[in-house]
């Protein structure tokens, strides 16, 4: 797979397909150069992207799984996932129910640690470090890899306190003025500010489902994560709210590496630059979204995309 083969259809600028190489056992070292080239192209656009370029130079994928297996008691849920997730991009993980995509997502920030009886094998590298290495603290890891869940969850406190909750615990701001700036920035980034700026002290539970989900995104942004994982974030909200959340994610792409699990193929096509297709606990296909959707290389991908199963 050559770099030139892959174009980022969504924005019409080159997308390194490198991240997709986990596929078919291709060596993970291959995409590095590709990603670097891509990062340079992007780097011209903004300082933020330039930073991404440095990161890309330093290691390519932000997260990589290397022959990663996961067993629930009596179920081999992930069967040798090898996959690179590119930085500063939206990667969509698609696949039928029960294919392991949410399990994989929850492995990336070790949220699965909480489920008793889970066994894993293989490695997941975050910026080159195995997240399962004994010296890695999952609590610290989760601060750098944030997560938004399927069902909107708000803490039983005000809108403001929902966003300020984690920054307070992590002591990210020394002054209350600083905290206000941070909360406003995160709510703006999540596209919620205009709707809530007059009622920041009201209970967050009074917000609608779609607003609660954007509040959850704002809350995740508030600890300055590098990666944001989203597990079917729009499956419990209406189409208008879904549109707002998608707009939010598009605005955030480039500044954060975003991985979204979705059942909504249209959503994957609309917002992601990179698509991974899971089936039966394995990665069937991964690549530029444009490619995966228009010219899937595997017949199973094609069958899934055309609605013949799943």
């Amino acid at each position, binding site marked *: 797979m050559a770099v030139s083969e892959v174009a980022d259809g969504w924005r019409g600028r080159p997308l390194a397909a490198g991240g997709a190489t986990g596929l078919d056992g291709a060596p993970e070292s291959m995409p590095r150069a590709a990603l670097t080239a891509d990062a340079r192209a992007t780097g011209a656009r903004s300082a933020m992207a330039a930073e991404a370029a440095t990161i890309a130079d330093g290691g390519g994928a932000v997260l990589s799984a290397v022959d990663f297996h996961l067993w629930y008691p009596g179920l081999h849920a992930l069967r040798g996932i090898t996959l690179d997730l590119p930085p500063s991009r939206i990667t969509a993980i698609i696949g039928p129910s029960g294919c392991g995509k949410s399990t994989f997502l929850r492995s990336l920030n070790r949220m699965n640690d909480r489920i008793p009886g889970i066994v894993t094998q293989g490695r997941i590298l975050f910026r080159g470090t195995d997240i399962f290495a004994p010296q890695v603290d999952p609590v610290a890891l989760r601060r750098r890899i944030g997560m938004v869940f399927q*069902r909107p969850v708000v803490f039983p406190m005000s809108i403001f306190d929902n966003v300020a909750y984690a920054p307070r615990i992590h002591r990210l701001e020394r002054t209350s003025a600083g905290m206000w700036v941070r909360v406003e920035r995160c709510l703006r980034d999540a596209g919620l500010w205009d709707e809530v700026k007059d009622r920041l002290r009201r209970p967050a539970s009074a917000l609608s489902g779609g607003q609660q989900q954007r509040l959850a995104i704002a809350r995740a942004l508030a600890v300055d994560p590098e990666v944001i994982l989203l597990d079917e974030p729009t499956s419990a909200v209406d189409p208008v709210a879904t549109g707002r959340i998608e707009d939010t994610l598009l605005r955030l792409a480039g500044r954060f590496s975003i991985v979204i699990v979705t059942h909504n193929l249209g959503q994957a096509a609309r917002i992601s630059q990179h698509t991974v297709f899971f089936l039966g606990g394995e990665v069937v296909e991964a690549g530029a979204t444009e490619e995966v959707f228009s010219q899937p290389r595997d017949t199973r991908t094609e069958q899934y995309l055309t609605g013949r199963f799943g």
Partner: protein
Amino acid sequence: MRTPPARRVRNALAVTLAWVAVCAALFPLLDMAVLVARHALPALRFKVLTTVTSGIAGGLANAIAGSALLVVFAAVIAIPVGVLGGTFVAEQRSGAFVRTVRMAADVLAGLPSIAVGYFGYIALVQALGWGFSALAGALALALLMLPYVVRTTDYAVAAVSDDLRDASLALGVDPTTTVRRIVLRAALPGIVTGVMLGVGVAVGETAPLLYTASWSSFMPTGRLTHSPVGYLTYVVWTYINQPFAAAHALAYAAAFLLMVAVLMLNVAARWALGQRS
């Protein structure tokens, strides 16, 4: 579409039965409240609240102060232990130790309070040599409150959705802080209910105090040991048996004050919860 007649009859029957059950539950409560109030109100003078008991008459100042002292003291012991224990059990979720603690709490809740009193007498009053005292009485009361606090906290914490825990952990917040800042906050209404139940039980107990706090017609001295303490339930229990109208009046007054205290605690707790949200 009309509702079939048979279903309407059954519905009416069920609603009627529900109302009968509600009345059957409420009637004894109201009857008792009215009875106590009718006997107590004529006897309740301001002097009753400010003077100590003497013989079969006098006031209740010593008993009010003693009851407050014992209950506050017991609560200070039982609430932290009970809330922490209940939270621990709920967060651990399973295992032999958790099952043992839950069973122990249930057994303790079913223990006759006189047994707790006697245990307090043997262990605290005699073996530890504290004598009849506020400390022994408060510990006996705390032991009775504990299972209510543990079990309701356990239920309330276990009922908090894992979504909330996950959402906090996903922000890189450690599990302990997550429990303290999110789980306990979400479980607070349930915990407060348990604490109120426990305090209510403690306020109304007589048996465990007879052997531990004994009785005193003087104001509490402030000494924790070797100094018996008076309390309201003792007045109810003893003075109602005396063949004197003045003693009866005092007993009803004490019972009335106990009822009002429990009611006020509940109202205050609900008000405080309402203020929060």
